[in-house]
């Protein structure tokens, strides 16, 4: 059993930022990251981010990752990092099982921050398991990290910001985007992103979904179908498109399995993406000294994951007796930034979700 003060599970923006403030407060930290690289979702984002200046808006995602990773690497004597290491078990007494290079090890920490992010939702249709059908994150990983194209052409399902942005990234990489389909009657993401695609000639088909995939050993064609106002398929509206790739981008849900394993009290909140941990105002779960930040507490954005990370790092350190020299100013500042990021029409869903999580009704 290896003993630690603070273990952070997940080296995405939320986990990295928690490590930064906790280490500034004087604490020693271990970050455990499943993939070979730190940075989470950010390392595959080639577009300039939306959000606020303080959280690096207008900077490209992978450049934001470089800044956040740099902050953590500056303190090697305090922040230890395990890469290629997956936390496969988390128990209520703060014990963890970690799998790395074929070996399982046991860890125990005085406090734990879970910052595991999210996983992609899937869509049900005939033959949806054929090779050539990928999640949007997978397409980005393949293309932006490894420089490999997912296919010669692609049909994108889902018009949220991720669907729109990944379609644009696919075109930049040289893939023909044959269509972007959306089941709802209107586009989900920002109109600026959608207009860019329209200008480049991508047909955006709303009230449309995938009926089935066609192919033998891999995808060859997709059959699309139009939906009426009751979301029922309209007979005779089917249309077949030749394509060797189909990308599913129908939302994310928090990666909550580890929390459920630790018997953390969970709640289903649709607005936050699915099962989420019930938390106190200090981002602590029902298990003492087990904190959460980022997409695992509700699907939002990198900007809020960054600020939540900073905040949780401060709080977890304080719990263990390490008080950041600017604790009060910073804490107030992070709370204000979160309120600001969640204001306005695009933050409405999060505001309703967080109210539900607290067991309150959202007053508009």
């Amino acid at each position, binding site marked *: 059993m290896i003993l630690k003060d603070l273990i952070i599970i997940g080296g995405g923006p939320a986990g990295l930022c928690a490590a930064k403030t906790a280490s500034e407060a004087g604490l020693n930290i271990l970050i455990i990251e499943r993939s070979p690289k730190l940075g989470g979702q950010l390392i595959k984002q080639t577009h300039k981010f939306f959000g606020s200046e303080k959280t690096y808006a207008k900077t490209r995602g992978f450049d934001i990752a470089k800044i956040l990773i740099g902050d953590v690497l500056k303190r090697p004597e305090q922040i230890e990092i395990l890469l290629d290491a997956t936390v496969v078990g988390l128990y209520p007494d703060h014990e963890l099982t970690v799998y790395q290079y074929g070996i399982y090890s046991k860890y125990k920490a005085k406090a734990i921050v879970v910052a595991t992010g999210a996983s992609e939702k899937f869509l049900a249709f005939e033959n949806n*398991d*054929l090779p050539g059908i990928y999640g949007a994150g*997978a397409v980005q990983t393949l293309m932006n990290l*490894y*420089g490999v194209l997912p296919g010669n052409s692609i049909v994108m399902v889902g018009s949220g910001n991720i669907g729109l942005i990944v379609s644009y990234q696919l075109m*930049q990489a040289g893939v023909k985007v044959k269509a972007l389909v959306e089941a709802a009657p209107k586009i989900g993401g920002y109109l600026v992103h959608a207009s860019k695609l329209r200008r480049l000639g991508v047909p955006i088909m709303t009230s449309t979904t995938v009926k089935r995939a066609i192919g033998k050993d*891999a995808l060859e064609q997709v059959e699309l179908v139009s939906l009426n106002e009751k979301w029922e398929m309209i007979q005779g509206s089917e249309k077949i498109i030749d394509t060797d790739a189909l990308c599913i981008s129908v939302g994310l849900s928090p990666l909550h399995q580890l929390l459920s394993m630790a018997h953390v009290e969970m709640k289903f909140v649709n607005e936050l993406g699915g099962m989420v941990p019930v938390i106190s105002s200090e981002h602590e779960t029902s298990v003492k000294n087990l904190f959460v930040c980022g997409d695992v507490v509700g699907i939002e954005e990198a900007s809020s994951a960054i600020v939540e990370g900073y905040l949780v790092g401060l709080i977890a350190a304080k719990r263990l007796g390490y008080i950041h020299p600017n604790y009060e100013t910073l804490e107030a500042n992070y709370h204000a930034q979160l309120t600001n990021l969640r204001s306005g029409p695009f933050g409405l869903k999060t505001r309703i979700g967080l109210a539900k999580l607290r067991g309150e009704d959202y007053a508009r």
Partner: protein
Amino acid sequence: MRIEKHPILTFEPKEELHFIFDGTPLTGYKGDTIQSALHACGIKKLSESIEHHRPRGFYCAIGNCASCDMTVNGKPNVRTCITMLEEGMVIISQKGKGVL
């Protein structure tokens, strides 16, 4: 199918790695995962589903879904999307559950 020109990203030429997939010698690059190297060679079917023997490709590419499990150097159920390619690897498309 590798990206040749990109307006934002640059992919530097890298050291070649040689491996064997189902008996066929193939080439990938240093920094590839097993899965990205196979995909670049046009190989999409990585295994067969256990009961109905349907073709399986990768889906999440971050180690979440187990859709890319293959037998690597004799070891079954290796998540090929998060396992880096190494020189001389012997990779077999997996059929069935695999035995350790």
